[in-house]
């Protein structure tokens, strides 16, 4: 039976096994490859998306659990925080291989929404579920502080 949901502002209907993880649907059925597969076990954060504005690891989220929900992927991350994160990430040249970075940015977006001026402790409390094989952690921390500054009007 088709499952209806909203992805990046568009209504979609997918006809897949209800146990299929959201990540597979995004990448294979909806051609949104920005969200990455890292571990498939909610251990690395590469597959992070937002469901009704909250983080979710899409690799362990059955599509049946998001029927009628609003999904945002990296392709649809916009608004004040999306723009600030993009600017900060670009300015500070954060990615190395880039594989983990969409998950990092999706997690950081939740942090900025909930903490306008995150401390290092807040960043640790938010970002410790996102693993970076290239160890870009120092630049990620710095870029989050910068994005917070941009989002609060201190851009340029």
């Amino acid at each position, binding site marked *: 039976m088709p499952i209806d949901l909203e992805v990046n502002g568009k209504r979609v209907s997918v006809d897949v096994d209800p146990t299929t993880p959201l990540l597979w649907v995004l990448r294979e059925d909806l051609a949104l490859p920005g969200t990455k597969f890292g571990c498939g076990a*909610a251990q690395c954060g590469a597959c992070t998306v937002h469901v009704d504005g*909250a*983080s*979710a690891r899409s690799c*362990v989220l*059955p599509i049946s659990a998001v029927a009628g929900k609003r999904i945002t992927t990296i392709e649809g991350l916009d608004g004040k925080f999306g723009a600030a994160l993009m600017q900060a990430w670009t300015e500070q040249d954060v990615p190395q291989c880039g594989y983990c970075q969409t998950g990092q940015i999706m997690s950081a977006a939740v942090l900025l929404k909930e903490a306008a001026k995150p401390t290092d402790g*807040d960043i640790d409390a*938010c970002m*410790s579920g996102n693993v970076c094989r290239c160890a870009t952690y120092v630049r990620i921390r710095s870029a989050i502080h910068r994005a917070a500054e941009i989002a609060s009007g201190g851009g340029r």
Partner: protein
Amino acid sequence: MNPAPNPRPRTPFLLASAAVASLALAGIAVQCSSPRPTEPARAAVADADGLRAWDVVYGVLQHPRCVNCHPAGNVPLQGEHLQLHAQNVQRGVDGKGRFDLKCATCHTAANTPGAHMPPGAPNWHLPTAAMPLVFEGKSKAELCRQMRDRAQNGDKTPEQLVEHMTHDPLVLWGWSPGEGRAPVSTPQAAFAQAARTWAASGCACPE
């Protein structure tokens, strides 16, 4: 740290609790509070039966499936040996985690298939920071007094305590925790009966 032992109910206790089950099921008219009321007529069940029932309840509450989400600190525990939860997961004010690392980020309403994949049940969460309901490291007497004290138990009446322990899907998850995790070893029905008997005793606690 090793998990506390999880004693199975003894046969005499089962008989005794069966004898009082109808009283308890008919409605727990007693009050549990700390310190406990002292009127002799307060309880439908004798202290000795209540204390034996508490032994069973305590054994279940000290099982890793229960203690892991009732930690002494602000970090949930995981596994069979009460390890700190990976990924720096924290309780948060509302007991639902913080920022990206909310419980619901990884824990859905049902267990994820596969060994050691994230477990799940409806409303996966810890107690709140203001009412942490700590089980970890509590002696039989300490945990008993905490459980019957409405100032420390989430303002629950005995009926509400029994309802939570016997019907909340998150508690019941302890008996179907998914692959790679040991279920609570005391049968759920024996636990439920013990919880009712304990409450019907006026929440008898060891000294």
